[in-house]
């Protein structure tokens, strides 16, 4: 296991290097630079040029790249040009918010998808099956921002059940506060803020996972041993739970891992609609301000997270399915 993990980490190095270089050139390809956006409309060309000098933007591109890579190697992600704080601290304040949102979205997705997928596999070609497959198709064909705004209008403005924007206390902190004070307000407030954005973000994953659960369940239900068990007269519910679902879980876990990575991307839109202070918004804002260090740092952080989650998925995979280990 250790060598496996070690190998994966070694593999990661060229990928991260590639990402850094790709992002670097992409950013410098985009017209406009931070000196201009920082100084605003009324700045004179001399003032802009002076700031460019200070920021090192007048150096040849390859020098800038080398400086960036050198700092990166030293573990220094740089300082935000706009906010005047270290990129690392920005990532540390924004990433947890996105993780929290993505985790809950995934949880919601699983809560919808697993029962729906199982039922529609067991009752294949019934109306339940058709309804859930229709939902699964719908979920992937709906633009996220549309769903988000509809939810806000429905649940915040008309029904006034959930807040329309923003984040409560961080969920972990709110749980601690609740335990400490015995006041449920904290945790409920955090959850109330989470629910609409998490639902918005989770629906598409729910749709995808539903399809996955259904197809892998169907497959297993057709396996000989399940049929044998059925023939032996074992109650069908237990067949489903014991044999089928456990085995169906393997491809589902892979998908869940991949979904988690992709939820990070979907967070960009969700966070914009709901004013969620996560890393997606941080990146979008940084791109529009040409705050190069922030964009570079955030992209690297996300890439690392991707790699980390995929590693966990692979380990889980090996744990659930011992056959893989021996291979």
């Amino acid at each position: 296991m250790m060598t496996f993990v070690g190998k994966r980490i070694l593999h990661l190095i060229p990928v991260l290097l590639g990402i850094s270089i790709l992002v670097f050139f992409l950013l410098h390809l985009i017209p406009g630079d931070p000196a201009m956006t920082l100084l605003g409309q009324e700045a004179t060309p001399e003032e802009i040029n002076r700031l460019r000098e200070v920021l090192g933007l007048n150096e040849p591109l390859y020098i800038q790249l080398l400086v960036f890579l050198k700092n990166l190697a030293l573990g220094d992600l740089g300082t935000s040009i706009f906010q005047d704080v270290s990129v690392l601290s920005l990532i540390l304040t924004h990433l947890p918010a996105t993780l929290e949102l993505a985790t809950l979205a995934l949880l919601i997705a699983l809560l919808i998808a697993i029962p729906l997928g199982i039922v529609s596999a067991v009752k294949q070609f019934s109306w339940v099956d058709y309804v859930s497959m229709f939902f699964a198709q719908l979920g992937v064909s709906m633009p996220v921002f549309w769903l988000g705004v509809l939810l806000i209008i429905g649940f915040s403005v008309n029904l006034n059940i959930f807040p329309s924007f923003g984040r409560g206390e961080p969920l972990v902190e709110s749980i601690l506060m609740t335990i400490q004070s015995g006041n449920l307000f904290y945790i409920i407030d955090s959850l109330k803020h989470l629910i609409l954005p998490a639902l918005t973000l989770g629906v598409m994953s729910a749709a995808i996972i539903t399809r996955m659960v259904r197809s892998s369940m169907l497959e297993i239900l057709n396996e000989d041993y399940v049929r044998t068990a059925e023939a032996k007269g074992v109650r069908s519910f237990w067949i489903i739970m014991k044999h089928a679902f456990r085995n169906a879980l393997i491809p589902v876990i892979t998908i869940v891992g991949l979904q988690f990575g992709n939820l990070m991307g979907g967070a960009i839109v969700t966070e914009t609609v709901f004013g969620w202070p996560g890393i997606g918004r941080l990146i979008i804002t940084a791109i529009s301000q040409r705050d190069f260090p922030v964009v570079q740092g955030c992209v690297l952080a996300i890439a690392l997270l991707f790699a980390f989650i995929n590693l966990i998925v692979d380990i889980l995979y090996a744990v659930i399915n011992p056959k893989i280990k021996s291979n």
Partner: protein
Amino acid sequence: MEYNTEIINQTEIEIVNKKEPGRVRKFFSFISNSKSVLIGGVIVLIIIICALFAPVISTHDPYEMQMSDRLLEPMEKGHLLGTDHYGRDLFSRIVYGARVSLKVGMVSVSLSLLIGVILGLVAGYYGGWLDSIIMRIVDIVLSFPVLLLAIALVAALGPGIENVIIALGLVYWTNYARIVRANVMSLKEEEFIQAARTIGSNDFRIIFFNILPNCLAPIIVVGTLGIGIAIVAEATLSFLGLGIQPPESSWGWTLAFGMKFIRDAPHLSIYPGLAIMITVLGFNLLGDGVRDLTDSKLKRK
């Protein structure tokens, strides 16, 4: 959006492992599959007809502004779906929008296919260091949130439909490369390929005449699904202000702008949103159905 590209690949692998289903089940699944092909096909056909015959189908000039008739409700003053914020006929705009949205979907997928298939073929067939490099590139692109990469590309290329298409094409190719590579690697060892090699066919011939035709089925399926993804992605880019340029108008652009009026004129966002949903649904049903059909055919062989 970018999410479901992953699953497609995954289900693809699943399907390869699929066991022969029972006879009765096979019959039912055949019916159901052809049903989804049927429904999906009809939807896609209707959309294509809309795009081709837009001037005939539309009731008004989609570009003509009539500021006095802003934001009319559906059916008002002879406007089937009402008017937009310039008093332009929404129905006609959606009909014409089919052209742009289909173009975005189809051309960007073709571009992704071109990149993905070639790289996948090369990686799978030659293996070795070429394979390593190509797969590392795939890894790099995959570790970005796809949407983010598209945003950066559109920002770099500038706005406009061509650039949106290029950006989407440049970010969605990784799946095709992976699927093709996996297929090529298994095909490579098949007898008929070995035979072709002993006859003395060159690599080019083998790749394009022996291997490629044999992995067309999954490519077509995933490509079909990809069209839907691209259409939704274009809408998202429009929402973030990185879409096409007026006066051209895709459904995504109409939807994104309609969102600004969602409280007072919800029809402006509901109808283009429905158009996107139905079209994506059509392509997905078609893709799923075709996959299951070709899959069972392959298995029967």
